[in-house]
């Protein structure tokens, strides 16, 4: 375990955490503000990646593709809201889970119908496709550094939006007590729609950003949705700040833990047992981490409702 390797793994963890944050931010708002469980949030990430792939093939330019993919992801989110989700706000959680699960099945099948089952390829832009040498023989792709920068920029933007604008204030108020906000004369339905569309766009943005490094394929959002739920539970439902910190922690714990758990175990176990145990323990780490957090803070780190 060298310091360089630890540093690189931390960068990887940071990058993974920021992608998780982009997805979790929308999810935590939708859950917190509207008390709405949206399992279909993961497919919005997938839709973002597919839109990116489609526009990238059409325009042949990364920047234009991203510019087109974002409003399209927003449009898809608003369309889903109007068609499906709007009718579920007053229903109980089980109905929401069933309906949004149906949306997952529908959209996974839908992208396969349109684009086929084979994974799609999105080229990274020319000027971001190189690598920088962090240490002797240790190259780090520039594109991943760009993801980190973009993720941090979106986090900063969200901070300003949520904490220093009128809409942000309403969102925060909605997260802690939605009926009261409504009683004060705010059009809560419109607020819901804005939050929902914005959350869908963030998830779409995450999908578009990872398209060049991951394969774009049906069902790609299903696994990451579980992690996004872990993040919002750790962070406290409805809290952007909580989601940010929790996403970074989950990213770091997962990446660094997976890389170094076997090495740490080797200190007090023989090598064969250590690698066997490390392999078994590494995927559990984030869940152990979540259990530990919830033991001390049952409502998460920064619960929005008090």
């Amino acid at each position, binding site marked *: 375990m060298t310091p360089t390797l630890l540093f690189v793994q931390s960068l990887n963890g940071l990058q993974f955490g920021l992608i998780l944050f982009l997805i979790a931010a929308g999810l935590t708002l939708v859950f917190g503000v509207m008390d709405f469980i949206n399992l279909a949030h993961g497919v919005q990430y997938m839709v973002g990646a597919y839109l990116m792939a489609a526009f990238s093939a059409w325009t042949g330019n990364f920047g234009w593709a991203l510019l087109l993919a974002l409003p399209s992801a927003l449009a898809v989110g608003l369309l889903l809201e109007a068609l499906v989700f709007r009718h579920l706000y007053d229903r109980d959680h089980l109905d929401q889970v069933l309906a949004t699960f149906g949306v997952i099945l529908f959209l996974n099948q839908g992208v396969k119908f349109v684009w086929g089952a*084979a994974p799609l390829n999105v080229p*990274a832009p020319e000027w971001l496709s190189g690598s920088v040498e962090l240490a002797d023989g240790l*190259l780090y792709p520039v594109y991943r550094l760009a993801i980190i920068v973009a993720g941090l920029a979106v986090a900063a933007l969200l901070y300003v939006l949520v904490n220093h604008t009128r809409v942000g204030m309403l969102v925060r108020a909605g997260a802690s007590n939605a009926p009261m906000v409504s009683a004060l004369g705010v059009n809560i339905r419109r607020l819901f729609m804005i939050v929902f569309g914005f959350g869908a766009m963030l998830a779409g943005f995450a999908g578009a950003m990872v398209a060049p490094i991951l394969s774009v394929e049906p069902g*790609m959002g299903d696994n990451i949705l579980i992690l996004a739920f872990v993040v919002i539970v750790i962070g406290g439902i409805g809290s952007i700040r909580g989601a940010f910190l929790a996403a970074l922690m989950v990213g770091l714990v997962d990446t*660094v833990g997976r890389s170094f758990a076997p090495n740490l175990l080797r200190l007090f176990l023989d090598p064969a047992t250590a690698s066997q145990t490390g392999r078994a323990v590494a995927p559990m780490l984030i869940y152990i981490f979540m259990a530990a957090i919830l033991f001390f803070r049952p409502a998460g780190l920064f619960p929005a409702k008090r």
Partner: protein
Amino acid sequence: MNVTIKTLGVAAVLGLAATPALAQEKVKIGLLLTLSGPSAVLGQQARDGFQLAVKDLGGKLGGRDVEVIVVDDELKPDVAVTKVKGLLERDKVDFVVGPIFSNVAVAVHKPIVDSNTFYISSNAGPSNLAGKSCSPYFFATSYQNDQNHEVLGKVAQDRGYKKVYLLAPNYQAGKDALAGFKRHFKGEIIEESYVPLNNLDFQSELAKIASLKPDAIFTFMPGGMGVNLVKQYRAAGLADRIPFLSAFTVDESTLPAQQDAAIGMFGGSNWAPNLDTPQNKKFVADYEAAYNSVPGSYSMHAYDAALLIDSALKATGGKTDNKDALRAALKKADFKSLRGDFKIGANGFPVQDFYLVKAAKRPDGKFQTEIVEKVFDDYTDAYAKECAATN
């Protein structure tokens, strides 16, 4: 005497009447493949390969019209068993061809062979079906799963690599893959790394590989995992420094997404699209014309499965009721395989050649694997000796 002649006459008339009826009755083949989910492209390749063969044979197998019933196993063993029972009991198929995945193959094996129906695996070759649980009703036109991994182990050994880094998903096939690699490789394994199944980001593994500086890496990452690993391996600058040995990671199903990133990466296979035989050239050209993609070994195995059935039915005169005769005819495998040398071994699995293949870009801009060298000649799998069935 008179009676006998009369009986003979009646029998002759009946026989005459019965023969055309028999000839018109279609031979039924159930294709059980994964046609949905992220791995659907593999099932599509197999389905297209089989149907291309039926088309090339004039819509007939062994002179009989064919009805091909395609079902999707959804990569779920329980779903596959239900659908196979439908094929066997409702459709009364004469052959089941498929599946892609070994867990499905193991699940449907018993219902198929217990019903005395012939089961031709066009891809999956799990070790138990080749060894202890082998059956006289089971044949494969593919390989035993370990064999492709053994190719790379042999290559690593022959090239004198001292330290190799192994990487596989954490499930049965991943563990089998690494075990297959180690069968011929005697050097040092500096790390045996397992990632969760469907892991898509390998950056932390790559950092580890870069810091350990092995002589080569060996990996088994099918489907989307392989697409990601290859692209990220290239982006991390490792592709030019540490040889990338793999199986089921760089092939015609993943190359359309990997593209230039995969060029020069190695795989193990029993065939490649550029294999120089006249049948194969025609097959690849026809397949590309019909389906607008380069065929992979999934298509080739399915095409050969159709040829195998065709050859057996020709030998029995189109009859499927005498199982022993049909089995003997299948075992003979009297057809020209697209891969050249091909025999059916004692356990129903092929005895064939294996090659080291490399991903390359063709002059027309499409990508395919190309043969580098032959690694095994007339190679029998390691489990054949455990098979007690006489088939």
